[in-house]
């Protein structure tokens, strides 16, 4: 027994030094990878800060040499950036409110209320996740056009108010971890469903609610196809469409474009760094909610 023990310690000792070597290798690979991941972003910054004469120099600058912060003003003037930014913010906030509220409401109904057909509807909603999104595109486009919603923001916002199966599913999962005795105690005290949900359960489920808010906002901020096909007037464009159109021109003033692009990225970066915990947490569950 003793000999076995000693050979194992020896083996561990030799392995430990080996691990160090592989760890160094690991670090090197990771460093190279990190540069590859982050350099494009730094490149955006260098171009965003360049003067208009320097952007077409064929000898690349790897780091910014001068700082033309006025690009952030000029670049944003080119595409009526702030109006478009306002459009995007408005649409994202209004749809996030609707999506979060409706998903929570449906989640509560499915997990806490008892009524016939509950399981069937649940599988319908979850099953609809499997349906590729573009199947509905044309008929819904026709429907919304017939309603006179073409060239308005309604097609971008209204669908958010009809629940999102993934978020509903996430909320249901979390509700499953809250004992029903909380509901019952509240009911004893004369609370109705509305109070139970919004005053008791939602505050308890705050981590998952924040995750849902972040991902909902992210989705709305990213929305591209819908504004592309529904919104014609430039004054009503969202940032996604405006920037794609700005970039579709090769002779674009790059420095202005990159400056505008950076500001477009900014809200998501802020959300990411403030809510990193929820972001990471949600990512795994949003993804696994897809098919379970």
């Amino acid at each position, binding site marked *: 027994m003793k000999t076995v023990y000693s050979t194992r310690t020896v083996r561990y000792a030799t392995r430990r030094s080996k691990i160090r070597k592989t*760890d160094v290798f*690991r670090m090197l*690979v*990771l460093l190279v*990878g*990190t540069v590859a*991941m*982050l350099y*494009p972003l730094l*490149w*955006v910054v260098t*171009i965003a800060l360049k003067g208009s004469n320097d*952007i*077409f120099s064929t000898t*690349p600058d790897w780091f910014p040499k001068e700082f033309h912060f006025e690009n952030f003003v000029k670049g944003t003037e080119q595409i009526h950036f702030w109006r478009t930014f306002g459009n995007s913010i408005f649409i994202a906030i209004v749809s996030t409110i609707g999506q979060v509220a*409706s998903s929570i*409401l*449906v989640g*509560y*109904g*499915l997990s806490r*209320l*008892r*009524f016939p057909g509950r399981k069937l509807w649940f599988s319908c*909603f979850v099953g*609809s996740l499997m*349906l*590729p*999104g*573009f*199947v509905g595109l*044309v*008929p819904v486009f026709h*429907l919304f*056009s017939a309603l006179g919603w073409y060239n308005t923001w309604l097609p971008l916002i209204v669908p958010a108010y*009809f*629940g999102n199966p993934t978020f509903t599913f996430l909320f249901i999962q979390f509700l499953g971890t809250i004992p029903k005795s909380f509901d019952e105690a509240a009911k004893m005290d004369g609370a109705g469903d509305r109070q139970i949900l919004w005053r008791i359960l939602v505050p308890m489920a705050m981590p998952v609610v924040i995750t849902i808010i972040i991902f909902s906002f992210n989705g709305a901020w*990213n929305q*591209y*196809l819908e504004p592309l096909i529904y919104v014609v007037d430039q004054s009503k464009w969202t*940032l*996604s469409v405006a*920037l*794609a159109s*700005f*970039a*579709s021109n090769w002779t674009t003033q790059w420095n202005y*474009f*990159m400056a505008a*692009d950076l500001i*477009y*990225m900014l809200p*998501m970066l802020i959300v*990411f760094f403030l809510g*990193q915990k929820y972001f*990471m947490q949600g*990512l*795994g569950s949003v*993804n696994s909610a*897809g098919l379970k």
Partner: protein
Amino acid sequence: MNANVRKRDYWGWIKGYLHISPSIIGFGVFVAYPLVMSVYYALMEWNGYNKPKFVGFDNFRYLFTVDPVFWKAIRITFYYVLINVPASLVFGLLLAMLLNRKLPAIKFFRTAFYLPTVLPMIATLTLWKFIYHPQYGLANHVLNLFGANPLNWLGSERLALMSVIIAGLWQVGGGMIIFLSGLQSVPQDLYEAAEVDGARGWIVFRSVTLPMITPILFLQLILGIIGAFQSFAQVQVMTAGGPNNATALLNFKIYSDVFGQRMFGYGIAEVWILFLIIMVFTVVTYRYSNRFVHYENDNR
């Protein structure tokens, strides 16, 4: 008494249905209605304004026999999916394994790899469009640094689709994070047991790590396939399907047929083809999954 209970039950039903009514309406309007109408529209000649005219299977006949781009689009879409999905999975898993170790600054590394996936899609796509600029883009600057000849990344028919796929790999951090959480949930005692049995390196990976994360791998595979078949913005923003339709993914073709050519009925016929392809791929993957996916509490 009995009637009283009944009454309360009715109220319970109504309350339940009121709560889930947003999703019922949403399901009706955004899932059921389009599905039913798609069957009808696929058989029509329709430009979105006129009254749909019944043409039977003419849309499909034209699609399979006449349309010069359709088969090319199918080929390109397969090519795209078959490279993009495995590459994202493999690189994501490799990265996760590299990062699944207590190293100095590991948090920084994880954040760095994840960061690109946080950015808005259009911001990254437009950025990559400039990275691929033949004269001033970063990609050719880097090639130049290594003494290689510049490439016409998005402008050459041979290279364009590959460039789109490479740009997509910048987002590999999304898969990486999911695999990382999967790797971290593998019970440590399994590794200890493997070590006692004398297993090393590759063998530990093959017989402990890999089986334990197959459920996640499988889920990512399915979601990856469904997502990749529907890729659209990538080529719409970076190449507009060109050059010479070299990047005309099927979903992009559908978009341009419907909203560019105003061929609504025809576009819906194409949607059905794409839908069918995705279904077949998903079902085959499911079937095949029984052979390699290991579920810890297998109760099937």
